[in-house]
C-alpha cells in the first residue's frame, strides 16, 4: 500500500498512509512509547477511542490524542510533555 506522506516524530521521519491516524503510523513504525507526558509518565496507544488520554502527543504545538488525529504531511509531532514553544 502506498505512502501518502511523512511526518516527523521526535526528529524521526514517519511514513503514513492516506487517512491513517498518528497512532496507527507510529505503531506501524514499531514505536510503542509516544514519549513522556507533563508528569514524566510514558504515553502510549491504549484504548483507541479517545477516552483514556494515554496517547496524548503534541502536534505543531497543540496537545491531541494520537489515536484520533489523522496524520498529515510535514506535521511536527513531539512528546506531550515537551514544551516546544521555543523550537
Amino acid at each position: 500500500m502506498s505512502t501518502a506522506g511523512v511526518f516527523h516524530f521526535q526528529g524521526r521521519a514517519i511514513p503514513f498512509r492516506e487517512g491513517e491516524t498518528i497512532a496507527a503510523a507510529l505503531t506501524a513504525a514499531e514505536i510503542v512509547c509516544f514519549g513522556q507526558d507533563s508528569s514524566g509518565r510514558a504515553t502510549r496507544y491504549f484504548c483507541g477511542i479517545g477516552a483514556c488520554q494515554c496517547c496524548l502527543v503534541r502536534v505543531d504545538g497543540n496537545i491531541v490524542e494520537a489515536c484520533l488525529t489523522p496524520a498529515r504531511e510535514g506535521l511536527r509531532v513531539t512528546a506531550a510533555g515537551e514544551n516546544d514553544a521555543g523550537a
Partner: protein
Amino acid sequence: MPAPDMVIIGGGPAGLAAAGEAARAGLTVTLIEQRAALGGAIFRQPSSGEVVALPRSRAAERLWRSLLAGIAQPKVKVRFSTSFLGVDGDGHVLIHDRAAQTVERLRPKAVIIACGAVERVRLRPGWDLPGVATAGGLQVMMKETGAAPRGRVLLAGSGPLLVALAAQMIRAGNPPLAVVEAGDPLSKPLAGLPLVGHPAILSEAVSYTMTLLRSRVRWLRGAHVERIERRGEVLQATVALRDGSREVIEADRIGLHDGIAENDIGLPDQAESASPIVIHAGDCREALGALGAILDGQRAGRRAAALVKNETVSMASLDKQLERARAVQRAIARLFGPVVTLPGAGELPDDTVLCRCEGRTVGDLKALLQQPGISGREVKHVGRFAMGSCQGRFCAANTTALMAELQAGGRRPEQQDLTGQRWPVRPTPIAAFVNAGPLDPAEDKEELS
C-alpha cells in the same frame, strides 16, 4: 445558520440510529463525531479506500447500511473531527472543530450523548506499560489498517471480544500467542442457550470460536495474567494457570480486556422541561452490544423528538426488544463468568499503578485510607486519584472498588464521588476558545428582546 433542534454526540450505532429517528420525526440534527469517519468502535471504518477491510458478517453489513441510509437526508448534518466540550451554565452546547480550530456554541433543544462503552481493565502490575493496550484498542486499529497487530501478541482478560479478536488475527495471518481467559465458556454451554433466539449473534460467536479452536492458538481458560514486566524490548507476562502453576509468556504486545462498561462519566440525563434536554443512548447508558445500541439510539431519538414536540410516543416495542438484548448480555456474562478466584486489588503489590495519568499506586491509596472515613472526593482532591487527563474514565471504577475492599463497613463509594458530574475536558487550545464564533442569530435576537 439556525441552531439545530438536536445535537448528537458520537457517530457510532446509537448516535446514527438516534439521528435517523429524530430526523424522521421532523427534527434538524447536527451529529458530531470526534474522528474523521463514522462507525464508532464496532463499525470502525478502514482509514482509506486502499485498505482491505476485515471481513464483516452479512448481518453486520446490513445494519451498517441501514444506519447510513437513515441519516442520508438533509435534516441531518454530520460534523467530523469535532469534539464535545460540554454544556455551559446557559445551556449552550460547546463543540470544538479541530480542523478549523474554533469552538462553537450551539443552542439545541435536545442533546443525545452516544459516546459508547469503555473497556474494563483489571489492575495487574504492568498494565500501564507501553506495548500494553486494550484488546478493543488493538481491534479498532486492525479495522482501520486492515492488518493484524505485528509481532508476538498475547491477549488476556475475559469476554467474547478476546475470542473475536483472536479469530480476526488468525484470519489476518498473525495468530496471537495465546488467549488467557478467566472464564471457561466451553464448560457451560447451557448458559449460552438464550443466544439461540438470535441467529446473527450466535452464528458470529460460533464462527469465531471455531476459528480459535481449529487453530494452534492456546486458549488458556480459567487462567489470568498476574503481572507484566518489561525486559528490554520484550514484555513478560506471568500467567497463573488453572492448575495453580505459573507460566511466563514473552510478547511484543499485550491486549487486555475484562469486559465492557458504560462510558457514563459526565453529564447526567435531564429530560422533562430541561434546556437542553440531555439523554444518553447506547452503550454509554447501558452496555448492550451493537444491536442493543441501535435500539437504544432509536429509543432516545424518538423520545427526545417527542419531548421537543411535546407529544407522547409509545416505546413498548423498542423496550421489549431491548429486554431481549439484555437477556443476551446476561447469557454472555454467565458464559464468561470467571471459574477461578481472581486476586482482589488489595492483594496486589503496593507499587501497582492504579491511576495512570497521575502515577498513583495501590500503596498510595492504602496510605490515604489510613485516615478513617476519608471520602471519595477527598481521595480525589488530596490523593489526586482520577484527577489526571482521563478524569477517571479508566481509574475511578478500580479506585472505588479498592476503597470498598479496604474500607469495610463504611459507605460504599461511588464512581461519581471521584468524577463529579461534568463532562470530562478534552485537549482544546486556548486559541480555539478565542476564536469562538457568535451565537446563532435567532438567539441573539431572543437575548435582546
